[in-house]
């Protein structure tokens, strides 16, 4: 990992351009009350993100020009927080870094972001709801892009947290975009609150880290600074009570890693903090594509990989991450098979795929996690945008039970959607196959306890993924159209703004696999060093010693992954195309299982009963009624006012009797008192 970077002044413009446009929109809408015309506003925002992409490409080219071991561009803007001195000093700078990991993330964010911006021009124009505000939408989108870019470009944890919070805020704003429907606002709040819980973990981790570094004498919040102190951190531990597991003390790096992972669970929707993501589908589809598929939810994965040097030496924390990821992947996939709303299926699919990424990260395959992050960004954005096109075509119908037979009607959308479905199912040579395979390989090869089980869970999830994705495909595009007659006659492809980004994303879904082609395939087609992504990222990520794997084993694993995907696809074909009455029969006969799946294992209800209701009751009945209204308002504020008024009205006013002589008397008393004081009588 590189210590000294090359100065580059253009880094700050990458997040700054979207911010400027967002500010312009904000001022023109909110302050001046004269927003730009919708098309102009949309094009302006798209231009900003595209310009960021161009700048990111330029920076990427500059980065490639540097030798392998010096690939780092830095841009120090200013010192944001400078407090304390010596070993208590906290210095958080606004300063950006562009190393291979940031480069990959930035390129993905800006590229997919621009595709989605362009898509939104077409999508939001068809917006029939009565909330005006296309300009507001693009303002929030640009603000989100700014925050996400700050997150991936920052070189210290504090600035990263700024971006972290910023994306959470924009997620809230965008989910509840059509806020006149209270349900949407509620979903936005749910997302933000659950995110907040994760952020609390992040902050605890940050505080522990900073405190430990201060104890070591060199407090720093920048990644380079923390990395430099890693040896000292490894020696430190926290004492825990005897009844907790692994007593008497826990290694500090494990605790910090777990705390940061809690933040990642919140942001990247892992168990137990994933409940906000399905409800986030209440927002417009481009929002779901951008934030809840391609960028914001990947922030957790990015953070874990950015802190890979920490997790590489915290094996217990990494094990927790791997197992959480695996379990989340499987559980979310099982929920997806029973959902009827097309966006909900995709939401749970996102949770599941994020689980894959964490599985890889926990097993030490950081490169695999980033590879899957990249391919997932493409194909999940493609799927969401495609679903948006379908929804538009069906006049805002989202229930798959009412779709069907769109193959004949949506000529432009059908192929790209099919490509997306096949990619996520993991069929070679599409990119999803390679990235999923890398993850499974890293799970098999890792040192995490029970890693073979992890591999098994990953494999099973791949099968389930293929099943529910093809279920979605068959229900939507194949068979007879189950829509009501008046809708059926109006189904047509959406406009060019909507369709063309889909084509671009489909193209990348196909070819992106080349970037990270695992060596085993490269050998087959005689390419040396085929995994260019891994080579590129190597300076930025920590290396974890895996078990050795032979090429044979890898090929067998790939084969079994494809086999299971075919199995899932076949099952879906059977159940939804050939024998469409079978699913209903299954649902009736295994009703307990079916109801559990449809109701998402009742997790929301459990959370509601265990956490939400008691907390709301506490806040309302105790904290609001008793403490706030009763004590603070009643006794403190109103009580004090009332007592002063009583005192003045019943006592003090008699001092103003109007009688001159009583005034004289008081003057005399005052003079006597002062003279007594001066004569030491009262002292």
């Amino acid at each position, binding site marked *: 990992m590189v210590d000294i970077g090359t100065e580059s002044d253009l880094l700050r413009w990458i997040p700054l351009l979207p911010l400027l446009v967002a500010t312009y929109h904000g001022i023109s809408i909110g302050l001046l009350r004269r927003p730009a015309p919708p098309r102009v506003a949309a094009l302006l925002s798209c231009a900003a993100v595209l310009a960021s992409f161009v700048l990111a490409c330029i920076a990427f080219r500059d980065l490639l020009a540097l030798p392998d071991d010096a690939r780092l561009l830095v841009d120090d803007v200013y010192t944001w927080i400078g407090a304390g001195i010596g070993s208590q000093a906290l210095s958080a700078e606004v300063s950006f870094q562009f190393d291979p990991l940031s480069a990959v993330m930035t390129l993905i964010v800006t590229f997919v972001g621009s595709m989605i911006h362009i898509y939104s021009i077409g999508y939001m124009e068809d917006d029939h709801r009565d909330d005006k505000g296309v300009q507001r939408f693009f303002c929030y989108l640009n603000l989100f892009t700014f925050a996400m870019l700050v997150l991936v470009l920052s070189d210290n944890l504090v600035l990263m947290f700024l971006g972290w919070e910023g994306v959470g805020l924009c997620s809230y704003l965008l989910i509840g975009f059509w806020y006149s429907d209270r349900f949407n606002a509620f979903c936005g709040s749910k997302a933000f609150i659950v995110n907040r819980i994760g952020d609390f973990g992040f902050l605890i981790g940050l505080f522990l880290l900073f405190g430990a570094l201060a104890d070591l004498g060199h407090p720093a919040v920048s990644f380079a600074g923390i990395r430099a102190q890693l040896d000292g951190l490894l020696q430190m531990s926290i004492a825990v009570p005897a009844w907790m597991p692994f007593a008497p003390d826990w290694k500090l790096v494990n605790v910090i890693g777990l705390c940061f992972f809690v933040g990642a669970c919140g942001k990247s929707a892992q168990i137990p903090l994933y409940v906000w993501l399905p409800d986030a589908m209440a927002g417009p589809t481009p929002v779901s594509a951008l934030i809840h598929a391609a960028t914001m939810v990947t922030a957790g994965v990015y953070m874990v990989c950015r802190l890979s040097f920490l997790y590489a030496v915290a094996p217990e924390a990494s094990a927790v991450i791997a197992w959480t990821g695996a379990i989340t992947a499987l559980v979310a996939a099982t929920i997806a098979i029973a959902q009827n709303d097309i966006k909900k299926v995709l939401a749970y699919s996102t949770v599941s795929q994020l689980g894959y990424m964490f599985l890889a990260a926990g097993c030490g395959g950081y490169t695999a996690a980033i590879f899957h992050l990249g391919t997932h960004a493409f194909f999940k954005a493609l799927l969401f945008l495609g679903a948006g096109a379908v929804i538009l075509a069906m006049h805002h119908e989202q229930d798959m039970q009412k779709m069907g037979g769109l193959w004949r009607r949506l000529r432009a959308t059908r192929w790209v959607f099919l490509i997306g479905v096949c990619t996520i199912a993991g069929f070679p040579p599409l990119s999803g196959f390679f990235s999923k395979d890398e993850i499974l390989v890293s799970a098999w090869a890792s040192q995490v306890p029970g890693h073979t089980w992890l591999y098994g869970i990953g494999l099973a999830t791949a099968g389930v993924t293929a099943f529910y994705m093809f279920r979605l495909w068959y229900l939507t595009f194949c068979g007879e159209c189950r829509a009501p007659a008046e809708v059926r006659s109006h189904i047509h492809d959406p406009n060019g703004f909507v369709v063309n980004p889909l084509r671009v994303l489909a193209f990348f879904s196909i070819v992106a696999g080349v970037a990270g082609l695992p060596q085993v395939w490269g050998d087959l087609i005689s390419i040396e060093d085929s995994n260019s992504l891994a080579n590129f990222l190597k300076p930025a990520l920590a290396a974890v010693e895996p078990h050795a794997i032979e090429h044979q084993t890898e090929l067998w694993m790939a084969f079994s992954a494809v086999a299971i995907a075919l199995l899932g696809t076949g099952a879906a074909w059977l159940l939804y195309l050939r024998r469409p009455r079978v699913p209903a029969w299954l649902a009736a006969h295994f009703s307990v299982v079916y109801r559990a799946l449809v109701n998402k294992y009742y997790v929301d209800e459990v959370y509601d009963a265990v956490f939400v209701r008691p907390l709301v009751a506490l806040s309302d009945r105790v904290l609001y009624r008793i403490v706030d209204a009763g004590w603070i308002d009643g006794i403190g504020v109103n009580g004090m006012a009332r007592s002063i008024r009583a005192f003045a009205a019943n006592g003090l*006013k008699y001092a*103003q*009797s*109007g*009688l*001159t*002589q009583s005034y*004289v*008397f008081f003057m*005399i008393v005052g003079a006597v008192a002062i003279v007594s004081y001066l004569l030491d009588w009262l002292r």
Partner: protein
Amino acid sequence: MLPMDHVIALSAILFTIGVLGVATRRNLIVMLMSIELMLNAVNLAFVGFNRIWSQVEGMPVIDGQIFVLMVIAVAAAEVAVGLGILLSLFRNRDSVNVEEVNLLKW
């Protein structure tokens, strides 16, 4: 030589009598006269102190007496205006009882 502390004591006594007059009597004219008495007591104190510290670095100082002259001037002005007010009051209320002048209240 005069006992100077007795001079100051006399001033204090006269002042106290004046205070009692202002605080106790209800007739406005007597109140005004008591105020005059207080001023006179203060004048006496000034002159007495001036007699005690009559030399500063060998030069005689009569600052206290100057001040007494000013006090007399002020007292004269105050009496004139005060009695004018009293006349107006009397014309309005037909009485110089201070308890009837009680509108400055809650």
